[in-house]
């Protein structure tokens, strides 16, 4: 027995099956976490190696290059980029999408093991970092403090960071801006010399004194006691009393040659919140944990944590990404509900019967809710992609049910009982319902196969829509006939309301049908004219293509900005603090939209991984700005960003580099950037090319924040040792260099323990003895024989300039000139810049390549175009199989031309660009648009089989199929309207897609209703003529 037969026969089973699906769906919905994007599996690994004290060039030579050479052989590697900065080497490995990152991580680890022996002894073991959206901090907390400032790190660590880290799902909590305690032993070089001591000796003595040593156990009588020496310093002052040597028969104490300074790290990062000194706490989630849930928990804990803090320490929120997620999801849910409402209204308007409307609209919630089961089963989240899949599908899931219901109604009107009509009516259309679903699946299923970044985003969309389509078809073939058999009546009695309301509607619809029939008669009579007009419109729209710019992703307004500012290199941190505070004050007054403004400056300590991954230094200021919600302000985030850029340019000349980036921390949805990569080994040549590029790009309208990635040359002092002289004194270079390092950077002597915490004890020259070149020159180094030699006797201190960061990509040195694309389509700037680059005089050995969003865009567009071709072929195959003809599908496919015309026309009119989102819209159109053609051609050929003439078949068929075509088109269009006009958070992302679908569908439906019947006429006539000729030939032969 068929599906619909048993469904009609067993209504209780059918109902309960669907009730079960709905219950499971709702249960799944309940457990679904909320997130912004689908979990984007990371394709990036970072290898970080610290080598304290080394300059950029040293790091490049000794750390980065050996590592790069080995890592380059890891399979599936796309790009290898590196940054060699003072103290640290960061290598980024970018892999092809879709590879198993765990396997790759193991590969990388193996390679690192191989090379670790080749690294300098002082370099720390390379650390591997995995990057994914999970790494994006979910909450940034600001901390304001006054008196507690010196002890802030410990206070925050104990009272805030540790409790927060215990919240389930929180990955890591790091504190920046609060300096850590450190104990300095500041020695006086003159006294050391007088007593014949060295920094190294003092360091090792402190290490030897600060010890707890177990002495074993021994027996006294019948008891066993353990023996122990507790020599660790109880107090940092204890250290002053250790004996470091003797002179003239008297003890020399540490206090005689040094002072103990129990304070904070010397060079640290400082954070200011709303102008006040404080700290920043960064909360990251565990991989796979739900950000909204965690942020709720964290926010709930804050008041309790606040109570435990000293009264001057105030916690606040700088950024809460879950806020954005919640708002975006809420606005999308609203969109889905509006779409549902519109579809119900359209169905009711066309059918005029509430029972019929109910039967059809019930398929919407069922198909939508069933898709939640898929989401929960595959561990996905409720995110932008899955929700917009719902929004897209609402208009399409009703189509099958409409077709079934219509045919069942016809049967009933002919005299069948509802029960019989339901079975036989469904039976007649089952095949075509399945075929039309297949065409849609042919469009959406390939979306699950896209690779790259876009693939990650649209895999879920493809699956969701495919699943919803299948469910809706199953629904249309079982639930719909069952409901028809129960709810529809043979005799329809209409109430007063119906007569009053629907008589004019029906009259209007009849007039619409007749008008279309008249137009169709005209079209069929003037085939050439129609052909020329339609093709003319199509060709004309192609010219608009030039007027529609292209970009990667639309800019998203999530109310978050990041500003990074750079003073000339070598500026003291005080200058940076001053400039930043002036700017912050000005902006707070000027832009009331700013809710929170926080900034950080200074050098990050090497053990704060989060801070040291981003650029930092005494001359660098990084600012986080949080604006009010987009609904609560008039100015868009891009407008404010533009004004801010102008402020910096006009009134803050001290900033050498300034970058205002929109879109907070998420990679997608920010303003697009164009990166011009300049490859070349020679610093001078690449630098001058980069300068030329910068000047050139600045002149092109629409560019902002043109930045050269390579920082300025840093002045530094270098000690050039004379190896012969060193050898003469019995020294070698590394002994001499290490001695230098121990005196200036400090020697880590031991750890001071207190309350379970460990603090570094560092021995170094007191600050006042390391302020001039003479101080360096006078440093005394002892050789193995205990004889002291001054630096100036074995070497020379010279000033040189070195590039502070050496960037490499694919093992070549590189400089990137990047620009933000502001208010104009990216393609415009690319065109203008390409023309200019042609004219540039580029030195030999230097090459320029375009990367950044443009590269991503090109990759994605290529992927999507391949996909479009694949989809067109698949759809053709499905249609050809259904019609058993090569011609009909080709005729139907012509409606695609008008769909693309429509997309270009509406993009041009609305000022949107062609981006990934609008491309996806256009691809979806392939399936939606051919559906209209299928309905039309199917009925026309049915008419012909019934014996009508070609002309009558076309006109009659067109007239009777007009309503279903318009109805299904309207449900899809109106389902998209809320998306296209949405103003909520995140709406920027989906607006181009909704707009493209609406434009393409409207335009192509109108033209399809005229062009396709006309083409059918032409081909059918040809067929008939051919038949006649064959017949005539046969007759002639017989004669």
């Amino acid at each position: 027995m068929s599906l619909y037969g048993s469904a009609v026969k067993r209504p209780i089973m059918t109902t309960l099956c669907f009730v079960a699906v709905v219950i499971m769906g709702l249960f799944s919905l309940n457990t679904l976490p909320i997130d912004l994007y689908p979990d984007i599996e990371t394709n990036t690994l970072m290898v970080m190696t610290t080598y304290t004290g080394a300059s950029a060039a040293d790091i490049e030579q000794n750390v980065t290059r050996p590592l790069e050479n080995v890592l380059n052989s890891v399979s599936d590697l796309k790009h290898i980029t590196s940054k060699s900065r003072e103290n640290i080497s960061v290598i980024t490995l970018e892999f092809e999408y879709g590879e198993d990152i765990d396997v790759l991580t193991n590969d990388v680890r193996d390679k690192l093991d191989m090379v670790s022996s080749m690294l300098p002894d002082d370099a720390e073991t390379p650390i591997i970092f995995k990057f994914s959206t999970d790494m994006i901090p979910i909450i940034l907390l600001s901390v304001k403090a006054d008196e507690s400032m010196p002890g802030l790190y410990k206070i925050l660590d104990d009272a805030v960071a540790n409790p927060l880290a215990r919240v389930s799902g929180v990955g890591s909590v790091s504190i920046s801006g609060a300096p850590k305690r450190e104990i300095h032993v500041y020695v006086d070089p003159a006294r050391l010399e007088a007593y014949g001591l060295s920094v190294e000796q003092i360091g090792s003595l402190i290490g030897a004194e600060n010890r707890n040593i177990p002495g074993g156990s021994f027996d006294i009588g019948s008891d066993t006691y353990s023996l122990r020496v507790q020599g660790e310093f109880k107090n940092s002052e204890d250290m002053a009393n250790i004996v470091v040597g003797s002179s003239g028969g008297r003890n020399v104490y540490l206090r005689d040659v040094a002072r103990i300074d129990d304070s904070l790290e010397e060079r640290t990062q400082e954070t200011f919140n709303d102008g006040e000194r404080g700290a920043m706490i960064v909360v990251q989630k565990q991989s796979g944990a739900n950000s909204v849930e965690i942020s709720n928990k964290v926010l709930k804990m804050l008041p309790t944590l606040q109570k435990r803090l000293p009264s001057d320490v105030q916690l606040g929120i700088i950024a809460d990404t879950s806020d954005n997620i919640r708002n975006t999801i809420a606005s999308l849910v609203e969109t889905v509900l509006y779409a549902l409402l519109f579809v119900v209204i359209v169905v009711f308007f066309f059918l005029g019967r509430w029972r019929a409307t109910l039967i059809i609209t019930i398929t919407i919630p069922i198909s939508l809710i069933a898709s939640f089961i898929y989401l929960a089963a595959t561990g996905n989240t409720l995110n932008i992609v899955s929700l917009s899949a719902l929004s897209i599908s609402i208009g399409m899931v009703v189509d099958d049910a409409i077709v079934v219901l219509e045919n069942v109604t016809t049967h009933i009107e002919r005299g069948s009982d509802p029960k019989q009509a339901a079975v036989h009516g469904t039976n007649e259309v089952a095949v075509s319902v399945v075929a039309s679903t297949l065409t849609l699946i042919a469009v959406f299923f390939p979306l699950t196969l896209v690779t790259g970044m876009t693939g990650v985003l649209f895999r879920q969309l493809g699956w969701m829509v495919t699943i919803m389509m299948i469910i809706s078809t199953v629904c249309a073939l079982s639930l719909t006939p069952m409901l028809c058999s129960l709810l529809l009546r043979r005799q329809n009695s209409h109430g007063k309301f119906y007569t009053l309301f629907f008589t004019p509607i029906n009259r209007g619809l009849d007039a619409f049908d007749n008008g279309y029939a008249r137009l169709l008669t005209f079209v069929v009579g003037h085939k050439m004219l129609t052909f020329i007009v339609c093709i003319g419109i199509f060709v004309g729209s192609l010219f608009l293509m030039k007027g529609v710019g292209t970009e990667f992703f639309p800019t998203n307004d999530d109310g978050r900005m990041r500003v990074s500012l750079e003073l000339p290199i070598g500026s003291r941190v005080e200058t940076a603090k001053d400039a930043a505070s002036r700017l912050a004050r000005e902006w707070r007054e000027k832009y009331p939209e700013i809710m929170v403004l926080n900034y950080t400056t200074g050098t990050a300590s090497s053990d704060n991984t989060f801070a040291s991954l981003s650029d930092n230094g005494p001359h660098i200021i990084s600012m986080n700005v949080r604006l009010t919600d987009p609904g609560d302000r008039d100015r868009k985030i891009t407008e404010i960003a533009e004004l801010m850029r102008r402020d910096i340019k006009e009134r803050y000349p001290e900033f050498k580099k300034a970058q205002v980036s929109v879109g907070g921390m998420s990679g997608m949805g920010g303003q697009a950037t164009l990166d011009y990569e300049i490859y070349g080994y020679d610093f001078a040549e690449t630098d001058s090319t980069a300068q030329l590029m910068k000047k050139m790009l600045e002149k092109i309208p629409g560019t902002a924040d043109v930045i050269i990635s390579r920082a300025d040359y840093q002045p530094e002092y270098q000690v050039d040792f004379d190896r012969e002289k060193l050898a003469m004194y019995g020294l070698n270079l590394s002994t001499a260099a290490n001695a230098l390092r121990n005196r200036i950077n400090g020697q880590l002597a031991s750890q001071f323990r207190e309350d379970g915490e460990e603090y570094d004890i560092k021995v170094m020259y007191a600050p006042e003895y390391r302020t001039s070149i003479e101080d360096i020159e006078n440093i005394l180094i002892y050789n193995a024989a205990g004889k002291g030699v001054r630096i100036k006797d074995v070497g020379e201190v010279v000033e040189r300039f070195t590039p502070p960061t050496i960037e490499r990509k694919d093992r070549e040195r590189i400089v990137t000139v990047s620009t933000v694309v502001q208010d104009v389509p990216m393609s415009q700037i690319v065109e203008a810049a390409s023309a200019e680059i042609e004219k540039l005089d580029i030195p030999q050995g230097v090459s320029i390549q375009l990367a950044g969003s443009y590269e991503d865009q090109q990759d994605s567009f290529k992927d999507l175009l391949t996909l479009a071709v694949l989809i067109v072929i698949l759809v053709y195959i499905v249609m050809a199989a259904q019609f058993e003809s090569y011609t009909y599908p080709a005729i139907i496919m012509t409606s695609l031309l008008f769909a693309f015309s429509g997309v270009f026309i509406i993009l041009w009119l609305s000022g949107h660009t062609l981006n990934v989102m609008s491309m996806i819209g256009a691809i979806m159109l392939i399936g939606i648009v051919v559906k209209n053609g299928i309905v039309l051609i199917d009925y026309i050929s049915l008419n012909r089989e019934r014996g009508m003439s070609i002309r009558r078949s076309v006109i009659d068929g067109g007239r009777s199929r007009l309503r279903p075509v318009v109805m299904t088109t309207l449900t899809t269009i109106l389902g998209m309207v809320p998306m296209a006009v949405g103003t909520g958070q995140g709406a920027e992302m989906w607006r181009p897609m909704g707009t493209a679908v609406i434009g393409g569908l409207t335009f192509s439906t109108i033209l399809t209703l005229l062009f396709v019947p006309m083409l059918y006429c032409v081909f059918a006539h040809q067929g008939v003529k051919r038949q006649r000729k064959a017949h005539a030939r046969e007759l002639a032969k017989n004669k």
Partner: protein
Amino acid sequence: MKTIFIAFDQAHYDHIVEMLERSNCRGFTSWQDVRGRGSVDGEPHYGSHAWPSESCAILTVVEDSRVAGVLERLRALDMERPKLGLRAFVWNVEQSI
């Protein structure tokens, strides 16, 4: 004994079986999914793309006295739903076992 051959749109099936029951005609033979076309008007029942509807046929052998009643009821059914199509033909049974 008379044979009544009834050809009709398959939507009628339940009604006709029920009618036979009411008319005390127990025995019948039926064929599902049969194709055909009326002599005068009405849609063909071909089960094809152009004419998707299908017919049913029933052959019943009844006492002579019951024929009139059965035909009467069939006519009423046909009048009630003229668009579906229902025809009946009666002939003699010569022998049976």
